[in-house]
């Protein structure tokens, strides 16, 4: 895989089918799917639970706005990922171009996906810091690899935003 920045987009080329599939999984991975821990992480409490009125108002007025914000980001990313559609079974490498103006949406969707995967798998801080674990193994190992791969992309986009 090669990743480089251009004036108005980031280009990820030489994407092998495995990494292309992981990218395709971003929108689905960002969904809590009704898993309470993931839902609670994306929509965390704004205050101590004793602040019942504040927390209740937050659920009514702020959470829907946050849901729309997160959904809008994943929809933008899903649209960009359509470049990878077609010939999913082909072993040929792919190229993905992320428009610079979509950088914030990508940061958000990647972050949502990382947080949801971590919450669903209940990863420990030690596991999350283990960047050398092989992705070949359990489903849990694959999820950890997914978090690290998405984190790598986030780092690159952040560097791009920082000039």
């Amino acid at each position, binding site marked *: 895989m090669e990743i480089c920045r251009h004036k108005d987009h980031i280009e990820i080329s030489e994407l092998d089918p495995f990494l292309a599939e992981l990218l395709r999984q971003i929108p689905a991975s960002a969904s809590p799917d009704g898993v309470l821990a993931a839902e609670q992480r994306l929509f965390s409490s704004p*205050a101590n639970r004793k602040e019942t009125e504040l927390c209740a108002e937050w659920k009514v007025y702020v959470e829907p706005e946050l849901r729309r914000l997160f959904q809008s980001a994943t929809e933008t990313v899903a649209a960009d990922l359509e470049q990878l559609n077609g010939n999913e079974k082909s072993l040929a490498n792919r190229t993905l171009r992320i428009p610079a103006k979509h950088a914030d949406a990508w*940061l958000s969707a990647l*972050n949502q996906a990382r947080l949801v995967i971590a919450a669903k798998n209940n990863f420990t801080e030690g596991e999350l810091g283990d960047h050398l674990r092989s992705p070949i193994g359990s489903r849990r190992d694959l999820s950890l690899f997914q*978090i690290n791969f998405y*984190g790598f992309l986030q780092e690159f986009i*952040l560097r791009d935003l920082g000039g």
Partner: protein
Amino acid sequence: MSREPRRGVGCRAQSKETEGTTHILDETGSVTTAEPTTETHSEEDIDLPWQVVVHNDPVNLMSYVTMVFQRVFGYPREKAERHMLEVHHKGHSVLWAGMREPAELYVQQLHGYLLLATLEKIS
């Protein structure tokens, strides 16, 4: 994220009880009359400062958290990094303190960036 005022959340710090009628002169020169508000809140609600606290989270990248602090609070990179490191090493950092309404808006923005942030009353 939108900084438009919401109903309910965020309105309280603005809604001190007013006495008498308020006259408002608009750009066209016409005067409108606002009835006195009847909603009252205790002095404690209005005057007590609140603080915005960000809590540690092993998933969010350090560089991402620094960028968010720069964007949300307008902090220079060095100050944003100091707070990020405080979150990382001490488990939390107080990013801002002041009136409740802007504090709520900051927490809302931080949640929009998926950081673990809370609003706490300074006692």
